[in-house]
């Protein structure tokens, strides 16, 4: 079964065969068809990069990851780059990916980082030691406008009515949107500021994902909602929410929703996504990257993808983009300050709120209480073993074979230590083989050669399964050339 699976996926991976496969599946392959219609001359010239690594500072599936993967396809199909592997480094609104990019890629002309407005929010909220300005700005790629909506059953028919009620008693209006410090909350703050209400008084209800906040808005759990237009478009179209305003400068074609500005709220706002290069590049590298990105945004596969995802082309490069990043950073910082996030406040246990105190107190209490139990000899006997979850009744009572010792733990610890040391330097195959061998040794195996053979087979196949079939990037380490 696995064999068939691997073969199937190898077919999937070869883009040449992919076309044949897609044709066999009796389906049009628009993207491939468009690539073959590339401007003549490009296809014949050698690609500018043999390999260009695209780092997405988010988990697979989100907006940054999508941008990275569309870039990958566009760069490869337009013949600009031979291979463009995507690496996901998720966490903390992209700031972990940014920090690692600035630290590890300095001076590397063959890596780019997908970034955007939300990263600025993350930098302020998480008090990140690095900022977007530490990287080399390449270009803004796309933008997405936000919409202000109310549930279909809401009494508010227009933005004016909503804002009148908001000005009267700000806390009575709950605004639902995405995560705290993200684009939705920033826009809520900007609107409040523009109508003369302190952003600190915005009753913003942060939900942890697009779907969750959308459910709350459509279900009427909050008074109003702020979300990306792409997420809201289907709901607006279906009439399950009423769009009151859009954050673009001008009205958008095909959407009869007035802008904030034409309704007297002087705010223009977009959730932009961009691409950055590592710091410390020489001029040649930088120009080569800029030219490649510029060629990419003009390529047919990129344009086709923009259409598919309904992204708005907001290409802006060079110094103009660098200035734009600076301006946006100070705007975001100013607004989030007023929300009270990202301030260096003294943090004590009590300031964390009643819930954490309750949890920690409970933990300490039950730890002491259950430790006191065995001391007083109330520990249950093994025979009456509880339905201790995840455990099984043991048959160890008095068995002659019963042994417990620290030696196996030592072997295991050695294996784990070897794994941690080798994983990123020596590569996962080497590290896994070592871990396997030590673990087998810990289980009293006296057949080191058999174990070594198995360890190599298992770790190579596990690596191929994860890195090739499932396409998850793992450090290949010293065996990089062979696998």
């Amino acid at each position, binding site marked *: 079964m696995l064999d068939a699976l691997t073969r199937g996926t190898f077919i999937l991976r070869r883009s040449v065969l992919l076309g044949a496969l897609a044709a066999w*599946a009796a389906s049009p392959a628009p993207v491939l068809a468009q690539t073959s219609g590339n401007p003549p001359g490009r296809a014949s010239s050698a690609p500018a990069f043999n390999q260009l690594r695209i780092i997405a500072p988010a988990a697979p599936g989100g907006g940054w990851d999508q941008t990275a993967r569309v870039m990958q396809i566009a760069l490869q199909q337009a013949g600009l780059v031979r291979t463009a592997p995507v690496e996901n480094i998720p966490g903390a609104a992209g700031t972990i990916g940014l920090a690692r990019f600035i630290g590890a890629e300095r001076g590397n002309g063959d890596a780019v980082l997908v970034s955007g407005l939300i990263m600025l929010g993350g930098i302020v909220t998480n008090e990140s030691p690095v900022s977007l300005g530490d990287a080399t700005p390449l270009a803004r790629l796309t933008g997405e406008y936000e919409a202000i909506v109310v549930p279909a059953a809401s009494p508010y028919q227009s933005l004016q009515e909503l804002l009148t009620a908001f000005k009267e008693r700000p806390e009575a209006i709950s605004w639902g949107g995405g995560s705290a410090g993200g684009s939705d909350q920033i826009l809520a703050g900007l609107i409040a500021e523009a109508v003369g209400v302190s952003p600190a008084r915005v009753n913003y209800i942060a939900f942890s994902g697009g779907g*969750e906040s959308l459910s709350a808005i459509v279900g009427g759990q909050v008074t109003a909602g702020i979300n990306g237009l792409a997420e809201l478009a*289907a709901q607006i179209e279906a009439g399950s929410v009423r769009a009151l305003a859009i954050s673009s400068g001008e009205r958008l074609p095909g959407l009869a929703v007035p802008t904030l500005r034409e309704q007297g709220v002087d705010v223009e706002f977009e959730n932009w996504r961009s691409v950055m290069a590592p710091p410390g590049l020489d001029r040649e590298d930088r120009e080569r990257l800029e030219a490649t990105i510029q060629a990419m945004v003009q390529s047919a596969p990129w344009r086709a993808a923009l259409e598919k995802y309904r992204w708005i082309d907001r290409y802006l490069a060079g110094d103009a983009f660098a200035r734009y990043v600076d301006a946006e950073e100070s705007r975001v910082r100013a607004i989030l300050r007023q929300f009270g996030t990202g301030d260096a406040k003294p943090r004590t246990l009590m300031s964390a709120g009643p819930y954490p105190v309750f949890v*920690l107190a409970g*933990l300490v209490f039950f730890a002491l209480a259950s430790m006191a139990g065995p001391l007083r000899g109330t520990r249950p006997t093994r025979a009456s073993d509880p339905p201790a*979850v995840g455990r099984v009744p043991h048959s160890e009572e008095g068995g002659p074979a*019963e042994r417990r010792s620290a030696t196996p733990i030592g072997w295991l610890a050695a294996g784990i230590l070897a794994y*941690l040391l080798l994983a990123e330097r020596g590569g996962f195959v080497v590290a896994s083989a070592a871990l396997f061998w030590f673990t087998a040794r810990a289980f009293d195996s006296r057949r080191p050669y058999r174990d070594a053979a198995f360890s190599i087979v298992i770790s190579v196949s596990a690596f191929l399964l994860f890195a090739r079939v499932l396409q998850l990037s793992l450090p290949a380490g010293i065996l990089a050339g062979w696998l």
Partner: protein
Amino acid sequence: MGETFQALSAGFVNALTLPHLLWALVGVTLGTAVGVLPGIGPALTVAVLLPVTFSLDPISAFIMFGGIYYGAMYGGSTTSILLNTPGETGSIATAIDGHVMAREGRGAAALTTAAIGSFVAGTLATIALTFFAPPLADMALRFGPAEYFSLTILAFTTVAVLLGASVLRGLFSLFLGLALGLVGIDQLTGEARFSFGIPQLLDGIDVIILVIGLFAVGETIYQAWRHGRDEIHAVTLHDFTGMSREEWKQSWKPWLRGTAIGFPLGVLPCGGSVIPTFMSYMVEKRLSKTPERFGKGAIEGVAGPEAANNAAAAGVLVPLLTLGLPSSATAAVLLAAFQQYGLQPGPLLFSSRPDLVWTLIASLYIGNAMLLVLNLPLVGVWARVMLVPRPLLFGGILVLASLGAYSLNRSMLDLVILYAVGAIGCVMRVYDVPLVPAVLGLVLGPLSEQQFRRALAISEGDLSVFVRRPISAVLLAVAVAVLVGPRLLKRWLVPDARAAV
């Protein structure tokens, strides 16, 4: 109704072509494989395969994704039952009794009841999805933060049936999970809590890391320490299904109850498959005439949660297809997949692309049947995995667990946390501290706290919101009834029983 049948049969005609069947096969095979692997779930798989399928037509791609989704739910139970190493939260409840059964040589029966339960639940839930999706989606929209808070309180009561012999140790485990749940950015304010200045901790401790660490790594360390002396019985197969008549009799009601619990809870975005599976486990134990068998190899404890798990997976598709609202990580990725094809899932998808939606639904029926056919003959083979020499078996488990944990975030810190949690898991095993309450604490704690504070923010601090809103009040009442009900019942019933004698 007639229209639905017509549309569905058109979908079947579409799905039953050879290329589409092959894509379904690729999907369920891949899905089963990722379900077996610790840490790798359907969301990640679909996300990384998205660009690969860029040039497929949408129908083929979605048939494959549907297969991956259902297949992963199937595969998850296998490692739980055989090796006590659930790779995702949905199969933890399965491990409790399933692994004991495997140790007793009843692994094949456990796997079979899981496979058939998954099939029954998947099929029934897909039927419910076919005919009742819109009203269910409307019901889900009535749930606001107050309702979700009350639901988590109800879910917390399931801890009561998982405590084991010592209430104190069970509660310690629960609070350990709650404490781990405190780490990271506070969702509502964006403020970091207990992250000790380590940026990788800002997003909190991943529940998958905790699950793999406590179970897979913890079990490995524990077994090594005891020199792997746990007795293992030979595999017994009653008939080709591996289940005895008695076990069939014990299984069918939990399958149906699990479906009834899992499907509606899957429609609600709340903690993934944790709440449905443990609710099902609790219901089975409470309804059983012999609750003392639970935790010692009760087949109902496998049949119910496995059915609930798959029914919940189908439930997740309800808000996605009818409203365009993703209520789980996988659903969010599927939403992105729709967008890749320029489609906007939402209230209008059924009318704008009925061919796509109905072919997808038809292929879910097909994928489910395919999974059963694929998995049942393999039950006997899988069950023999238990007989692989221990050194090789645990070496493999540790390698796969480590790879799975690393590939989540590509973070070495996650690996360090994984092994540290594994050591804690071993110590907890030694001192008879149940592991599952810790996982429940980590999943439910943050949910509960957030929804509580959200509800209060919306009501401007008015606490009565939890009892004024009818659904919330009912959920809280059920929670109280579950906690004190059995004791009260006993008090009322026991004197009567004496009088009768």
